[in-house]
């Protein structure tokens, strides 16, 4: 199969949808070259540097029957638009009693690895997960990217496409035909029986590498890629942990009130899963710090395959004591 980069897959998905639906238009601070070329400056708009305004404009246009795409570029830039995201986009359908729909795709690059320091490196998706009324996903492959973006564009709600900065130029097979991937469906990226690793984006690949390494020692690792953050495929995660009895969560974000905390809660609050959990849950996350610039520091902050391996060994060692009651 033909290969595309992660970023190309996103752009292709957008272009395909734009060809079919004239109601879609695109806004970002610098217009995306290939889209501008194909669709012109009316549908592919260069905005002033006003993420707040063009997020609001997307909401208004959506309420009037359009299907806007608002691309914030770096996720850190969207904090200037946070009122429009949290108080408006997320709440407006609900608080108006569902009168009209607000189909909007937001795009934002997340994560580190580029040595661009704290104001350009962040993985704050759990901040958005906490807000009721927003759907969101974070793909790990070009294939998932294309399928999820297409679904999101067709969805009648605001959906955020979080996209891993580290994966932008990574290639993978992408079918040429029109396919979609449903929101809310996890993908088991590797089957295994001893331990479950729930990982996101770049850490899916690190987890797969860790799994490969541990396979040589006879340790069987299952890698679950939730892909969608809201709605989260809780059942897939619980099923996997019920099977393996052990859970490591690998996330490029810091742990505190993060995606990793939510997964830990989803697993430990479910009686059937808790009953089969043999060891403490392990979060393999970034350190809870702003992201530093210097490579020595940045490297130290982020988790990687080695830390995943360590985390897996840790939960394999821990054994659940007999019922303490």
């Amino acid at each position, binding site marked *: 199969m033909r290969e595309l980069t992660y970023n190309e897959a996103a752009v292709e998905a957008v272009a395909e949808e734009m060809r079919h639906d004239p109601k879609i238009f695109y806004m970002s601070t610098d217009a995306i070259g290939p889209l501008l070329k194909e669709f012109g400056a009316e549908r592919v708009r260069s905005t002033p540097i006003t993420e*707040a305004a063009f997020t609001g404009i997307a909401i*208004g*246009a959506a309420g009037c029957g359009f299907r*806007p795409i608002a691309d914030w570029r770096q996720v850190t830039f969207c904090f200037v638009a946070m009122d429009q995201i949290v108080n408006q986009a997320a709440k407006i359908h609900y608080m108006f*009693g569902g*009168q009209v729909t607000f189909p909007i795709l937001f795009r934002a690059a997340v994560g580190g690895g580029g040595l661009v320091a704290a104001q350009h490196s962040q993985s704050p998706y759990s901040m958005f997960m906490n807000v009721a009324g927003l*759907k969101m996903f974070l793909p790990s492959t070009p294939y998932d990217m294309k399928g999820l973006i297409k679904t999101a564009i067709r969805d*009648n709600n605001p959906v955020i496409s979080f996209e891993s900065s580290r994966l932008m130029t990574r290639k993978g097979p992408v079918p040429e035909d029109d396919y979609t991937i449903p929101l809310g469906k996890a993908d088991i990226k590797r089957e295994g029986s001893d331990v479950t690793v729930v990982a996101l984006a770049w850490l899916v690949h690190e987890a797969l590498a860790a799994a490969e390494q541990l396979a040589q020692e006879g340790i069987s690792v299952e890698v679950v890629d939730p892909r969608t953050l809201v709605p989260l495929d809780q059942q897939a995660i619980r099923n996997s942990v019920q099977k393996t009895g052990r859970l490591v969560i690998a996330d490029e974000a810091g742990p505190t009130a993060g995606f990793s905390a939510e997964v830990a809660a989803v697993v430990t609050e479910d009686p059937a899963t808790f009953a089969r959990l043999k060891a403490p849950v392990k979060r393999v996350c970034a350190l809870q710090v702003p992201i530093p610039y210097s490579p020595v520091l940045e490297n130290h902050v982020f988790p990687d395959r080695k830390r995943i391996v360590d985390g897996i060994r840790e939960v394999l060692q821990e054994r659940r004591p007999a019922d303490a009651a």
Partner: protein
Amino acid sequence: MSLSPNLPPDKQREMLRRMLTIRRFEERASTDYLAGKIYGVVHCYIGEEAVAVGVCSALDRGDRIISTHRGHGHCIAKGADLNRMMAELYGRQTGYCKGKGGSMHIADFGIGMLGANGIVAGGIAIVTGAGLAAQMEGKGGVAVSFFGDGASNAGPFHECLNIAATWKLPMLYICENNLYAAQTSAASTHALSDVAARAAGYGIPGVVVDGNDVFAVRQAANAAVDRARSGGGPSLIECKTYRWRAHTERRGQPDLREAGEIEAWKRKDPIALLERQLRDQGELDDAGLQTMEREIMTALEAAVAFAEASPFPLPEQATDDVFAA
């Protein structure tokens, strides 16, 4: 008071009727709020009726507006249904928002009323998106942003005026300068007393009108609408007006404004002003006014009865409408 050239008497009386309806509606809302039948917070528009009615009288049904936390006047001026408005205030299933929104969030997309908004300046970008939608639809529609003097100091005002001016969006930005933002005087928060002066920075018309003179407002709005429909881009209209009541209807809420100031503005009552003019022109007499008052009160009683007869939402409906299908 401004003249009303070429405006048929019927239309003039209809403007009076809407202004009176706003006032009576809010008097009732205030009473019912203090009686505990309406919840949360209610912001009354009384004293400012000429702004909403003057502007909306210049619009077509297909044109779109957005409002603020002080939204009843804009709803009624744009033609919203009193029953569904009152039912919303009463928190009932039959309300515009199925009881999810309340006073600060009444919307009726069917008549182009894109909602009251609880966040100061929160609607400016959204309705600018409606302006962009109107431009892209190409049917000559316009969009109107109502906002206060307080909101005019917030970032979205600036971002959107510049975008609308640059993109030549068919927009009216209507600043309702009632001299206060909650307890804080505009004099203490604005470098200049005229918000309209800011229009010059974007190369668009900025005019100041007597916001208690409904025909003056209408005339300025007409000019701006003509300009917008013919591709001339946005206008900023500042309406000097005053709210008669405290910022909100909360019991015991202090009103720090001087009694003399309030009284002086009450003497400039926009409704009395219009009444007098219609009488002077021989287009209204006591009987006509009494009929109008009676019809409005009948409609209002019907709205209250409708609201009271309507069921509260079911508790489980709290989870409806978070996402659209």
